């Protein structure tokens, strides 16, 4: 059966299809948001030509590709945010408007000690506020209410303080849908700050509390710190001091350039960091002010770089008190001295008076009365010795100093003091021993006194060790009360009985002695002489073992070897000088003779004029000439001074003569030159006076 083609039905189908296509095209155009195609505008042929379905399909293909790209980028961005969320050092929390936790990072669990792995669904206050719901200071609630960033600098939860920032996440209409809260624990930081503040406060209190003025200088010498004591001492306000250059301060104006430079750390770094003190006398409004300034270089601080700290003490008052104390001590020792003299002389006077009384009672018996008069003589001899030793304390006993080496002095004194004793000695003097500036006679007495002290402590024999070394006192040597510098250190060490501890402190006191019959003046005069030489004497002792005396004497500036040569030359000159002493008192001959020998002269002695003339004649015959004669005016039972001089001038016309007498009312003494004398030394005389007079007489033409 043949199917007949129904044309009307065919057209109907085509129309239906065309209608469908046109509708779908319009639907697509609607989707992409443009106007539909008007049927009358485009014929089917034109529609096919335009190909709207193809165009829209191609566009959609691109829309899909773009969507995929955007999705990929979104995922990447979300991963990035997640990584930041977890790795950031802040605790992060995302909450919804009901304060339910939507998200949280690892750090938040650590900060709030959350043990559960997932707190999502919990309320934020359960986690951060520890169940104190509806607390006043709620950051999250504030973010939702205000819909903006909220920041709290010191938000406390239990013992921890946080810095909290809350930020809203808004929807397309700008309403807050979520809040992001960040928590930063600042407790440790606050604690550290508090401790630093405490430390600063402690330093401030300490600085303000001390009486010494403190100034810190920067490397350019500008003041960067000053305390209240510095304000008071320098009479300037802190505000005025800070920033000021150190050399602009009043006290600094007194300094010489080199001393000023010492204040600069950069300068002192180039040399050696200067640490030490200096004393400066200034004029203040209230009169003289004496400042002691101690300088400490600090080179270690990196933050402040190099700096110098000056400690300033106003020692005006201290010095005044010290002076007063010294005066008081002087008075005290004077009273001890006076008491001692009175005691000593009373004993002697008693002995003299009773001896004379006894002699008078026994005038009939010549031998008996002679014996008692001899007692009186002995007692008077003691009195003379006492007076002689006391002369050291007299004001006029200031040392006549000369540059000398202690080497020869040691030899001479040892020979003089230890001769004939059962004590051995060991002498050790360093080869390059510095020279000292001393009064030879006085210092000889010091060593002699110390040696005698040792001898008396070693009645059963023993050894005395003498040592002389160079010594440099530095700031580090505490305990020896002498200024820093070069010294000669003498050591006299014995193996005697030693000194009890309670007596050690007093052994340099005048009239203090543990030995019966001892005057107690030997060590006291040694002390006095050493002090007058700006030296120091110290004693160490152990009962049963021995005693050590140590003397520090300032060394001279002159070089040792060269200086020693000079001294020797001078001494050689002196060696040529020969002196004769004529005196009936053998004690005087012995002591003055020794004194002159110590001064470096050749000395001969005679007990009367006749003997003196005889000795001189003998020596002249051997071509030994005398330069000076010291004559006693009155010699009982022998030729006196005036007559002796006449005879001596006959055999030695150029000889210089000095008259010496214990009598003050002799006519000769007042007009000595008329009797041919060149000088005079009234008895008792001090070594310095004798030396002065000899020098004067010998220098005269």
């Amino acid at each position: 059966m043949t199917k007949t083609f129904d044309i009307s039905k065919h057209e109907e189908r085509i129309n239906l299809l065309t209608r469908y296509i046109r509708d779908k095209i319009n639907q697509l155009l609607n989707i992409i948001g443009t106007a539909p195609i008007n049927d009358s505008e485009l014929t089917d042929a034109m529609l096919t030509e335009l190909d709207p379905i193809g165009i829209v399909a191609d566009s959609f293909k691109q829309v899909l590709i773009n969507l995929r790209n955007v999705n990929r980028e979104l995922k990447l961005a979300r991963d990035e945010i997640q990584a930041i969320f977890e790795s950031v050092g802040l605790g992060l929390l995302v909450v919804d408007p009901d304060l339910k936790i939507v998200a949280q990072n690892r750090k938040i669990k650590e900060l709030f000690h959350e043990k559960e792995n997932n707190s999502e669904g919990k309320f934020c206050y359960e986690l951060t506020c520890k169940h104190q719901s509806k607390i006043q200071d709620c950051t999250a609630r504030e973010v939702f209410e205000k819909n903006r960033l909220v920041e709290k600098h010191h938000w406390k939860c239990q013992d921890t303080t946080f810095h909290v920032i809350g930020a809203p996440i808004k929807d397309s209409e700008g309403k807050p849908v979520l809040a992001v809260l960040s928590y930063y624990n600042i407790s440790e930081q606050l604690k550290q700050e508090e401790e630093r503040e405490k430390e600063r406060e402690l330093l401030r209190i300490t600085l303000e509390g001390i009486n010494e003025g403190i100034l810190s200088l920067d490397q350019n010498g500008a003041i960067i710190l000053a305390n209240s004591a510095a304000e008071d001492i320098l009479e300037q306000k802190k505000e005025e001091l800070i920033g000021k250059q150190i050399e602009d301060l009043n006290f600094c104006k007194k300094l010489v350039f080199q001393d000023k430079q010492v204040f600069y750390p950069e300068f002192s770094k180039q040399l050696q960091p200067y640490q030490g003190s200096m004393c400066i006398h200034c004029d203040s409004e209230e009169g003289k002010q004496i400042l002691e300034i101690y300088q400490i270089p600090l080179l270690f601080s990196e933050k402040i770089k190099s700096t110098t700290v000056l400690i300033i003490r106003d020692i005006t008052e201290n010095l005044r008190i010290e002076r007063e104390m010294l005066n008081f001590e002087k008075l005290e020792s004077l009273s001890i001295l006076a008491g001692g003299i009175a005691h000593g002389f009373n004993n002697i006077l008693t002995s003299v008076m009773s001896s004379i009384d006894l002699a008078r009672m026994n005038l009939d018996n010549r031998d008996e009365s002679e014996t008692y008069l001899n007692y009186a003589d002995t007692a008077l001899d003691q009195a003379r010795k006492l007076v002689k030793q006391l002369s050291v304390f007299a004001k006029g006993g200031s040392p006549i100093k000369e540059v000398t080496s202690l080497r020869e002095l040691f030899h001479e004194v040892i020979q003089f003091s230890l001769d004939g004793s059962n004590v051995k000695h060991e002498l050790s003097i360093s080869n390059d021993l510095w020279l000292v500036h001393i009064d030879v006679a006085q210092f000889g007495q010091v060593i002699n006194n110390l040696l005698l002290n040792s001898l008396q402590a070693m009645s059963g024999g023993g050894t005395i060790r003498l040592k002389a070394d160079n010594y440099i006192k530095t700031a580090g040597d505490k305990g020896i009360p002498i200024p820093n510098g070069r010294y000669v250190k003498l050591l006299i060490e014995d193996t005697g009985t030693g000194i009890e501890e309670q007596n050690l402190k007093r052994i340099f006191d005048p009239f203090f002695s543990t030995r019966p019959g001892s005057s107690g003046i030997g060590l006291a005069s040694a002390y006095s002489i050493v002090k007058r030489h700006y030296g120091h004497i110290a004693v160490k002792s152990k009962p049963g073992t021995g005693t050590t005396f140590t003397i520090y004497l300032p060394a001279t500036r002159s070089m040792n070897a060269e200086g020693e040569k000079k001294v020797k030359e001078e001494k050689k000159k002196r060696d040529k000088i020969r002196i004769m002493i004529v005196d009936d008192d053998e004690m005087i001959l012995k002591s003055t003779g020794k004194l002159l020998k110590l001064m470096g002269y050749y000395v001969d002695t005679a007990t009367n004029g006749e003997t003196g003339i005889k000795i001189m004649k003998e020596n002249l015959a051997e071509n030994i000439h005398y330069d000076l004669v010291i004559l006693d005016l009155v010699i009982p039972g022998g030729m006196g001074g005036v007559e002796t001089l006449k005879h001596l001038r006959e055999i030695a016309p150029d000889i210089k003569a000095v008259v010496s007498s214990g009598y003050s009312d002799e006519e000769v003494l007042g007009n000595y030159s008329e009797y041919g004398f060149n000088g005079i030394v009234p008895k008792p005389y001090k070594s310095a006076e004798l030396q002065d007079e000899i020098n004067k007489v010998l220098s005269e033409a």
Partner: protein
Amino acid sequence: MGTKKYDIRGQICPSTLLMVLKEVNENSETLKSGEMELVFLTDNRDALVTIPQSVETMGYCIETMKEKGHYRITIKGSLDRP
């Protein structure tokens, strides 16, 4: 960079949009690589809404400028992510 310029003044919707989409589709490679930009001159106000909407969802950038009696629409490949 090359520029293709189309004067489609006088055309109305939807053919304005279809015309633009067709050119964008055909030049998609050179647009994306940044070698090319397309400039359309139109006096159809509706196109100022429809063209950006469609072209932006396809991932392109668009600039519109009002000139004397018409609008100038410039289409470029998408900007790089910052």
